[in-house]
């Protein structure tokens, strides 16, 4: 199986207080930010690796995982890290973060998919910076491929994927024929969430995503990483989403202490007016 995984780097969500917005409110000031791969994209990569191996012998790769990101040169760190954990090839679409929106990324990915011809495109359900939750859906529409979003489990079948999605009050299971676009949720990295046809159903993965050992990190320096121009994938670079302004969330006001439940109820009723 050949899988294309789209990765995005985001400002480290644990250091969100470092995100600065200049007084003009025009854009986010990214200087001095620490970057991390979007967690949901890392889960997508982990799912892709699980689908291209026998889980009992993860060192033997069975299939191909290609990772792609959009961004400036520095985003190659994200790609190298993915190569170190097991991806086979990487593509960086040279672009500037503030000149992209979900639509443009999806259109460029469509062109890339037509060239790479993967069986599956796996992506995170959303990026934790913009929280747009669009690219997977737009891409499936543009490709006219079956789609499953927010996957919590994936089981490979001949020519299809059985995808479990957690919905209110239960699990909805979809069988998507390949090729398909699948976006993943957090649960996908649980020990029994993903099975390729080669992995025995008794196998349990470690919880969470795998990380690279040092020899693999050094070896990944030699894996292919190519740069592609955005214009070659998407000649029309007009954006559909325009941002009108940014503002930091208001600082949290100090709380108050209440004596007892009745005071709490009265305050909720009379001051906060939520009851």
């Amino acid at each position, binding site marked *: 199986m050949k899988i294309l995984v789209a990765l995005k780097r985001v400002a480290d969500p644990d250091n969100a207080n470092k995100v600065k917005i200049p007084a003009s409110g025009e854009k986010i000031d990214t*200087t001095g930010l620490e970057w991390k791969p979007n967690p949901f994209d890392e889960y997508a990569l982990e799912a892709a690796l699980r689908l291209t191996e026998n889980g009992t012998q993860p060192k033997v790769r069975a299939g191909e995982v290609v990772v792609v990101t959009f961004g400036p040169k520095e985003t*190659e*760190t994200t790609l*190298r*890290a993915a190569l*170190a954990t097991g991806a086979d090839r990487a593509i960086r679409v040279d672009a500037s973060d503030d000149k992209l929106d979900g639509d443009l990324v999806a259109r460029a990915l469509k062109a890339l998919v037509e060239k790479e011809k993967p069986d599956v495109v796996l992506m995170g359900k959303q990026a934790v910076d913009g929280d747009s939750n669009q690219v997977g859906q737009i891409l499936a529409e543009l490709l006219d491929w079956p789609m499953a979003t927010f996957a919590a489990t994936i089981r490979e079948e001949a020519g299809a994927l059985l995808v479990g999605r957690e919905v209110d009050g239960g699990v909805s299971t979809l069988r998507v024929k390949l090729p398909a676009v699948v976006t993943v949720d957090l649960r996908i990295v649980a020990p029994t969430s993903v099975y390729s046809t080669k992995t025995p159903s008794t196998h349990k993965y470690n919880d*969470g995503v795998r*990380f*690279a*050992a*040092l*020899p693999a*990190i*050094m070896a*990944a*320096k030699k894996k292919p990483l190519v740069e592609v121009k955005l214009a070659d994938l998407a000649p029309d670079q007009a954006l559909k989403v325009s941002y009108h302004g940014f503002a930091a969330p208001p600082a949290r006001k100090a709380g108050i202490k209440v004596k007892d439940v009745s005071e709490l109820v009265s305050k909720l009723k009379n001051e906060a007016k939520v009851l």
Partner: protein
Amino acid sequence: MPPLIEQSFTKALFHGVIAEDMIFPYPEMTSEERQSTSIILDSVRRFFAANVDSAKIDREQEIPKEVMDGLRSLGLFGLQIPTEYGGIGLSTAAYVRVMQEIGGMDASIAVTLGAHQSIGYKSLLLFGTPEQKRRYLPKLATGESVAAFALTEPSAGSDAAAIKTRAEVVDGGAAYVLNGSKIWITNGGFADVFTVFARTSALEEGSKPKITAFIVERGMGVTSGPNEHKLGIRGSSTTEIFLENVRVPRENVVGDVGKGFKVAMEVLNSGRLGLASGCVGVCKTLLRLAIARVEERRAFGRNIGDFGLIKDKIARMLAETYALESMTYLTAGLVDSKIADYSLESAICKVKGSETLWSVVNETLQIAAGIGYMQEYPYERILRDSRVNLIFEGTNEILRCFIALSGMAAPGKALAEVAKAMREPIKGFGLLSDFALRKARAALGRERMTRVHPLLGREAVIFEEYVSELAVQAENVLRKHGRDIAEMQFTQLRIADMVMDLFAVAACLTRTTRAIERRGEDGARREIDLCSLYLNMAHKRLRQNVSDFARNDDELRKAIAGRAYIDGAYPFDVL
């Protein structure tokens, strides 16, 4: 003489020479190396977050087997071993950056890994023959075998040349038989390969010792005592080891026969940088804890971070950590650029590293106050873990003497040579030594720091002033005491403290210059301010040291200590 100066930035300072081309621009990793190092750090952090419980390691005085196995499979045992021998092949800068991260997360693990590769098998990397490397490095790289460095003995700690362990030639030179014991050997309980230092000549008081370094396998007959119970780094194994008629083949001599002391010193020179970077890591961890605490703890209706005395602590901790980090990575860069002599720089990093950490951990615990003292919180453990850094890999006292004497050796020789040329006895040549000094300076033609960014002009001028002050003081004390300088420890202390501050300031200046050049004044605001504050703090100490050369109470202190030795205790009671 000029070559000597050109080999070491710090030694040149003793001549009043600022060899700025050695430290400008501030060294940095290639972008490829930065990238792979950041991926390595990410893996290391994830592994520690998921698997390492430092409180438990401290409590149970052991690193669990699964954690050790995890460290092995990550590849952390062979960081600097070349890839051809199965290691990761990191540069010094990348290696110390990884050790910094580990030090900041768990001291017991950092010491265990450091004893293995910063000193345990370092002798093989530095002096091993290709055959020895082929034989030992592949297993050491994967951690299948673990190394230890065995120098210290019951009667030979700081005075390492006094070791008694004997190595006697047998079988017509085909092998040696080792007898003796070593104490406080890190990894002693489970190491498979020991770098053992033994005497290959009879022990004679005062005569030059002949010491030889050997690679000794546990299987050759090394046994170890139980783990010592320690103040800190309790998860690391520290034991006595015994060598009883251990037969070691001749091929296992590392370096030349009789040159083992040099092997030990070179290993320690390079090992000290790993220790210093571990201290950087702990300081950064402590700053995170301290800053979180001052923002959350309230007193008198305010966050304690609002109080001036707390701000003062935070600011000083930041400035000291900045200076320490700057000099550690400057030195790492010097090592990677293959300069011949970084012995003073790495000794300075070790002393400053351990003392900065001790002050940062002390202040952080003070900020945390009551909770700082409780075992429920990490502060007291980090304090206990930090203390050993002032002691091992050369006590800070020994290293101060080393820094001062080794730095003054070249000017001392220059003075003596001029004296000889003029057929004057060493004490008699007064003014002529100025000539020697001027000659040295003229030969290199530089005593200003010209490459520093103009925004740091004030700082650079103070640095230049005190560099020439150091040279003047060094010359004065050499002229006054000649060879007796070796006995003048109060003077050595002043010289050492001056040169340590100067190296730290130089490191801050070059690093901050790079930051300004990259990001402009506003972008480098933090660095500029830390550099200024550190300079102010160092300036006070430098001024004090200079004035102490002229007027001090050294003799008074010696007299008081002398009398106390006779009294045998504090001599008073108010009763």
